[in-house]
């Protein structure tokens, strides 16, 4: 860390401790890191948990609802109950109009994004020639945070995947972030014999036990110019770091993050993984490029987002209380005037192939979306000032609206089914005039478009055999609705609980379906 007989160090120590006898020891970087961790671990945990809250309390999800929001929702509830009692017909009409228009707006917005995203399909932001022409001496130190918790099954594979990264090993600053009580994973990681310059960081047990807290802890120790995160089951394309480096070189300082595409290596496992792959391919290959092209806020994906480390620290890192800290960070960056870009590189992950596990994961994402929606709607006018009306609209439709539509969709399907089977007059009585046309549009065209757009997902990656499975999307919507309700319940009763996604369930070898 420092040369022997460094006068400056001696001066600082003397000023701090007075004239004491200083014994100089030669230790490795790792030892020093461990010593510092041991001494300052309480402060570091405190900073990781409360840092954002102390500096920017309005951006932290540690309070689920602010006082103003509570007052607003209470008043809204009272007004709704009152109007239901005294103006029943008008209230029902209002509800039907509101949700029908929301459905309509949401699907049209997705349609526009998809088409614009599809128009970018063939653009290659970073070319292979650019990657090959890099002078490796110029490459900066690149930090990689790898938060892992209870992943003994796949930690070995992860280490092998990270070894494949095409980046000078001396310039890789890989930090495995273990929970200190997760001995099984730690031991398995040691058995995999990672290179000596990769670091193991043990995070003291504290509340909330979330991935963003671990990442904030790791961020303190990261020494790279750029930083990225990989999850335990990730298999990034080997040249991803180089592409990200070139992307940052090509862009202005306002672009502080690049999001790589995520996709699944075990898509052929079962119907669920096929539908999940369709959804992910559609999201990362079409929707996000659409948002990017329109310069709208981009909710980041969980991993493979590459940051300028200095700007990430300035933003305050991740919100440890938000269970989709990634999406929140993307929106926060935008609200602070920064931009997020899309990188043409893919990280392959393991798709959930068990329904219960999938619901756990999805409900966490939807709960996180609700948290993000609430946090960034605390000061709507200020938010509009920062991101503009289009950005605000994106937050409402894309983040809040997506959960809300999943929450109410089952009631509309049920209403339709009951009407279809019984021909009850109640539904027909309200569906007249404009509302009838909007409802019909949603029923016939909206639902169709939702299914149809997911067929788009197969084209970029040539997953043509998945196209027929798009027809099964209504089943997928039902699952999403179920998890949305679970998310809503948790938002009130267990807001910071991190629903752990189990990995290593697939029997597929990671390289089976992926060809780099």
């Amino acid at each position: 860390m420092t040369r022997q007989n460094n006068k400056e160090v001696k001066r600082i120590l003397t000023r701090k401790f007075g004239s004491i006898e200083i014994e100089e020891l030669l230790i490795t970087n790792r030892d020093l890191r461990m010593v510092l961790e041991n001494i300052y671990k309480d402060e570091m945990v405190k900073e990781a948990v409360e840092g954002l809250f102390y500096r920017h309390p309005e951006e932290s999800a540690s309070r689920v609802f602010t006082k103003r929001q509570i007052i607003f929702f209470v008043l809204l509830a009272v007004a709704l109950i009152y109007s239901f009692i005294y103006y029943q017909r008008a209230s029902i009409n209002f509800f039907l109009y509101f949700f029908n228009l929301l459905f309509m707006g949401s699907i049209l917005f997705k349609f526009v994004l998809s088409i614009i995203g599809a128009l970018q399909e063939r653009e290659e932001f970073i070319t292979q020639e650019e990657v090959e022409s890099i002078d490796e001496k110029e490459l900066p130190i690149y930090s990689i945070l790898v938060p892992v918790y209870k992943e003994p099954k796949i930690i070995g594979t992860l280490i092998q995947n990270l070894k494949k990264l095409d980046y000078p090993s001396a310039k890789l600053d890989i930090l495995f972030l273990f929970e200190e009580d997760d001995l099984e994973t730690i031991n398995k990681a040691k058995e995999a014999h990672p290179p000596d310059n990769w670091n193991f960081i043990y995070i003291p047990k504290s509340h909330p036990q979330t991935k963003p807290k671990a990442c904030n802890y790791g961020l303190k120790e990261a020494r790279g110019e750029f930083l990225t995160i990989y999850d335990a089951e990730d298999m990034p394309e080997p040249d991803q770091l180089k592409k990200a480096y070139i992307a940052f070189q090509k862009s202005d300082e306002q672009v502080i993050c690049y999001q790589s595409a995520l996709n699944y290596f075990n898509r052929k496992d079962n119907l669920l993984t096929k539908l999940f792959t369709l959804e992910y391919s559609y999201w990362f290959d079409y929707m996000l490029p659409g948002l990017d092209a329109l310069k709208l806020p981009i909710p980041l994906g969980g991993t493979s987002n590459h940051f300028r480390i200095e700007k990430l620290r300035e933003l305050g890192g991740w919100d440890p209380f938000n269970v989709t800290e990634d999406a929140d960070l993307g929106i926060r960056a935008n609200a602070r005037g920064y931009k997020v870009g899309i990188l043409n590189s893919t990280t392959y992950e393991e798709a959930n192939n068990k329904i219960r596990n999938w619901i756990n994961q999805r409900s966490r994402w939807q709960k996180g979306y609700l948290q993000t929606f609430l946090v960034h709607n605390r000061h709507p006018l200020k938010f509009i000032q920062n991101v503009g009306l289009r950005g605000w609209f994106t937050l409402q439709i894309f983040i809040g609206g997506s959960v809300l539509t999943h929450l109410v969709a089952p009631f509309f399907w049920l209403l339709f089914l009951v009407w279809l089977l019984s021909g009850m007059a109640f539904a027909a009585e309200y569906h007249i005039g404009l509302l009838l046309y909007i409802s019909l549009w949603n029923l016939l065209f909206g639902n169709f478009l939702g299914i149809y757009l997911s067929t788009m997902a197969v084209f970029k990656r040539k997953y043509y055999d998945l196209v027929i499975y798009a027809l099964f999307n209504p089943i997928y919507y039902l699952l999403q609705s179920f998890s949305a309700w679970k998310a809503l319940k948790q938002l009130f009763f267990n807001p910071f609980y991190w629903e752990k996604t189990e990995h290593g369930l697939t029997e597929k070898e990671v390289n089976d379906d992926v060809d780099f």
Partner: protein
Amino acid sequence: MMLIFKLIIFSFANYFLTEYFKEKETAYLFLGSLTTALVYLLLPEFVIILPFYIVIFFFALDQKEKKKRPAQLMTFLMPTLAAVFSLSYISWVYGYGMRLIYLSGSIFDLSAAGVFALNFKDFLLILAKNIPLISLIYIFVFFWLLFKKTPFRVYVYLYLSPILLYIGYSYIYGINAGVIFYVPMLLFSLFYFLIFLDEFSLTMERFFYFFLIVNFITLLLYLLAVMIILPAFEIGIIEYLNEILNPVLVYFKEYAFENWPGPGSELIKYFYFR
């Protein structure tokens, strides 16, 4: 909605599809397929030429990637099938039965009563009269496509779709659809020009503009002439064509129409064993 706007939408649908076949950009496939479905909704008569599109899709798609072909075909057909289903559903809900193509009543201004009784004689007469008009620019681009280095790209046949729609439409309604179908043809030529601009030489480009201007002038003159100057002359042309075409039509009527739904044994004998 006025027929002219429906035909313009039809032209856009074909433009997107042709653009997709040429550039292979997924966005155009989706826009083309959705616009085609919209054409169906606005102009259900379109369904009569849908099989033509399916054939084009089947042969025009990438032969090397076998799995891609059904995926593209499905993507193309899904919106139109959904539109067919949607109209049927609406028809059923309103008590008109689960009709696949036609809606009785006037929901969404789609009332149509199929008569399927075209007077072929009149049709051919008026078509013959319109040919000089519609051929100018349309034929120019058609020949250009035909004689260029790779003329047999299957999707080039999309270029024929306005003519097919014109015939189909006339057939369904038992009337001649008229010069209004000149609109999609003219638009098609413009779109094709835009799509293949990179393949045009400078001379061809100048030729195209020349034909385009001539075409517009001809259209104006034609309308002027038909309306004001030449009604008598028009009658004369019709009579003359009538004389030429009459024997053919009589023959056609005798052997094809009266033996419908298929050629009778007498017709087969006449052709093969006389």
